[in-house]
């Protein structure tokens, strides 16, 4: 999370870039830079979505406690 922006940050920046590009008027160099940044942000957003996928686990209380044993919290 330190290097890659969070989902909402990335999405907001991406939306801002798209709006900016659609408004037009940026010079060609800036346009190309924004396109590159937008593409990178899109990849960030997509990878965040993939990060949410995993297993569904149904644990009894004792199983859950055994799993976190030694964490100092339980």
């Amino acid at each position, binding site marked *: 999370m330190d290097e890659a922006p969070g989902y909402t940050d990335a999405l907001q920046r991406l939306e801002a870039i*798209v709006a900016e590009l659609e408004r*037009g008027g940026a010079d*060609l160099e800036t346009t190309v830079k924004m*396109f590159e940044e937008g593409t990178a942000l899109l990849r960030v957003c997509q990878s965040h979505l993939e990060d949410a*996928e*995993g297993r569904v686990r*149904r*644990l009894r209380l004792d199983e859950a406690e055994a799993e976190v044993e030694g964490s100092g919290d339980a």
Partner: protein
Amino acid sequence: MYGRPRIHHVPSEDLLAGALPVGRFVHGLRRMLQEEPTLQRQVLRGEVGRWTRARSGHVYLTLRDDDGSMDAVMWSSRAPPQDFEEGAEVIVLGSVDVYPPRGQLQLSVERIFAVDRLGDLEAQRRRLIEALRNEGALDRARRPLPFFPKHVAVVIGAGSAAEADVLRLSEDRWPGLRRTVIGVLVQGEGAEGELVRGLEAAAAMADPSVAARRGNPPVDVIIVGRGGGSTEDLWAFNLEAVARAVLRMPVPVISAVGHEVDVVVTDLVADVRASTPSDAVERLVPVRADLVQHHDELEARLSTASMRRTHEARQGLLLLRHRLAAAPTTGFTAATRRLDALTGRMSRATEARLRQQQDVVNNAGQGLKRNVDQRLTADRARLAEMDAVLRSTDPRKVMERGYGMLHADDGRLITSVTQLRAGDALMVRLGDGQATTTVDRVEGGEHDG
């Protein structure tokens, strides 16, 4: 004729085989009663008849009113610390049960409150809320839910309908979403402790290093709750220990207890109050397909807008060129001139170089021609000279003046009489022809042959 009933004969084998052992019958009865929801976990009102606390810690009591009575038991783990007086008005939460050794119908009581104590409980709840308010727990800044969760912990009734609802609904909205359900008791004795422990376990899973041990990202949100029930059923969520556990959670907590109308203390202290467990899912889990569609739209718009800009730039350049030609301004004129100058210089440079090359070729050609001509002239002159010389020395010229040449018959030129003998045939060549002759006599010469 009245007497003790007597058994006149033993029953048939068939009858024996069909007879149910009484113990099994009692256990079957017990199971039937336990599976009948209207007989389980009922809130009953009455007064205490008998109250006996056994050495084992179990309490045996009778609950009665004007219309009836029922024996009841509170197992030691559930028995209140204080004894109730005979005649005390109480409310109990209990389930009908059979005590198999005696086949006795009894009420198994989980909780008992003196009627005025119910008021006490509510007063207790109000004091708790007041205390939490004074501590600022009710006004604290609520943490926002993640835009979407990467690992949800759900602390909920083990195997409950609410658990099934949460799992199904979240799967519908986000297939494959990472979820960890921690099944706990949510009502009755032990619910308070299990809810606290379940929350603590969920909190521990929010620790990245703990979660990583199972290869999971840390829990980033917790749902704690249960399905609908009576006020009594939901009471654990009004207890201080549970409320304080919610407040300790390191990640946002959604309290999802009962139905819309129920408000419990955990609702007041959680980061988000959901009206039901399903409502919690709807608030927490976006529809994944919507996000994917949004991404796709942004991707398309990004490409379209960028392409259009590039296209515009290309068009702009073309347009600029036309405008420069049509309506030159000073700056542009200078630029055009410079461009023209450059182009001119370039083409001139090219032409000059071409011309230069041609000159070289031409010069070389001319030089060559001159050389050849000169050579030819010189040669011609020399030829004329030579011709004159040749002409002057040509023997035929001499012959033209009346001289002839003698050749032997083998063609040799005869230059001396010594080459001749009488009778040799000779050929005489003159300027305009030849004739043959024979030698009659040879005179002169050193040769005497």
